[in-house]
């Protein structure tokens, strides 16, 4: 369900000579825009539906000489572009990327040459503007072949800065990017804003296995007893939380300090450190060797899984590297899950003095 920007007024200017309607949008963010930007960081469901209609938008009062900036129809991307442009009158050409941001959509091909060429034609951009230049975000380059666009539409693609906050400086520099503007960064803030989505995703995946484990742990001859369930499951819940903290919070936080390049190994190292700290503090120390081994295995493997999952959110992991480490890591995760389950079952049986 595409969302129309709250501050967007659809201007009915459609006619045979001018082409489809141009949507007007205002320069500043309103409360809903800020609220949406926060929700995108905590809800995957919301984020996937946070879209604007593809098409041509006018920002301020652009003349035919005003520049055209291309972006994706993920509303947060669109909002950052208009925020980055500030008080500059401009056109924003929004491509249909199925609500995905520029970088990921370019990787998948939806932010690409075909869609750009199609949108230039369908929005009659050459009628609306008097020049032949499009400013495309640099992170859209994996999907857009500038020479193809030029050949097929006559429009020259000028790659703009990586971050929309640099747009005004880019324009002031006569459409020139500095080396810093075209280099991706992954600062502490950029890493930490990704944490809530990562935590919620893994927490959601953990619910069913945790309920199943709790039921098994509470199983008695009389049925399922809550007290027994709590006593045996509490350390497992603590280990699960420790793994999530380690893999989803400490890992992004400490990423530049990691001594190894493999994300899977980084997760294991952090998981084991957290496990040892919890053990020494007595929080997960167990009298049973089976339970202790299961908890360590759970923390290390889940922390590693969380760390590996972070690759998709980073601008530093590459396809061949991730593929290479997954060939080893995925069989290990499956083995670790199976061994953890067996150890916990053996622990449960030993607690019931069956062994």
């Amino acid at each position: 369900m595409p969302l129309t920007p709250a501050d967007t007024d659809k201007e009915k200017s459609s006619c045979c000579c001018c082409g489809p309607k141009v949507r007007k949008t205002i320069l500043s963010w309103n409360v809903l825009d800020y609220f949406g930007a926060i929700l995108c960081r905590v809800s995957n469901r919301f984020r996937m539906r946070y879209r604007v209609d593809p098409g041509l938008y006018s920002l301020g009062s652009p003349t035919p000489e005003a520049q055209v900036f291309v972006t994706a129809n993920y509303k947060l991307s669109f909002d950052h572009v208009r925020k980055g442009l500030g008080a500059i009158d401009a056109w924003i050409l929004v491509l249909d990327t199925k609500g995905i941001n520029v970088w990921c959509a370019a990787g998948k091909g939806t932010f690409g040459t075909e869609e750009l060429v199609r949108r230039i034609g369908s929005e009659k951009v050459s009628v609306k503007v008097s020049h032949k230049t499009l400013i495309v975000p640099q992170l859209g380059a994996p999907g857009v072949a500038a020479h193809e666009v030029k050949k097929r539409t006559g429009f020259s693609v000028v790659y703009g800065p990586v971050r929309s906050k640099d747009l005004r400086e880019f324009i002031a520099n006569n459409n020139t990017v500095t080396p810093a503007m075209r280099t991706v960064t992954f600062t502490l803030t950029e890493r930490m804003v990704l944490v809530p989505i990562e935590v919620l995703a893994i927490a959601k995946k953990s619910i069913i296995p945790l309920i199943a484990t709790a039921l098994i742990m509470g199983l008695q001859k009389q049925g399922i007893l809550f007290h027994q369930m709590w006593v045996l499951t509490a350390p497992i819940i603590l280990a699960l939380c420790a793994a999530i903290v380690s893999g989803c919070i400490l890992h992004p936080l400490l990423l530049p300090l990691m001594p190894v390049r493999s994300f899977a190994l980084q997760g294991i190292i952090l998981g084991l450190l957290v496990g040892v700290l919890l053990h020494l503090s007595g929080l997960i120390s167990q009298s049973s060797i089976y339970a202790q081994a299961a908890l360590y295995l759970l923390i290390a493997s889940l922390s590693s899984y969380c760390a590996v999952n972070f690759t998709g959110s980073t601008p530093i992991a590459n396809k061949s590297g991730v593929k290479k480490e997954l060939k080893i890591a995925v069989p290990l995760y499956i083995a670790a899950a199976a061994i953890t389950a067996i150890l916990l079952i053996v622990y449960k049986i030993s607690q019931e003095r069956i062994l």
Partner: protein
Amino acid sequence: MCIQVCPRNVLAIKEKKALIINRDACLECGACAKNCAFNAITGDFGVGCAAAMISGLLRFGDPDKGTCDCEGSSGSTGCC
């Protein structure tokens, strides 16, 4: 153009030739190849997303066939 579109400064021009000067920094995004009018750059380009690859490995035995958790409800094969 390949120099300009690289977000990690992997390439540099020396003696009128584009050279790889920082292979380890390469994201394999393919921006350089896509924007080379002479088709001088080839490679196995793509997204380094483990969630998508794990899904592909578990469901199809092929890491290149998966989609990640970000797949949209509208059927789009989106990401992040």
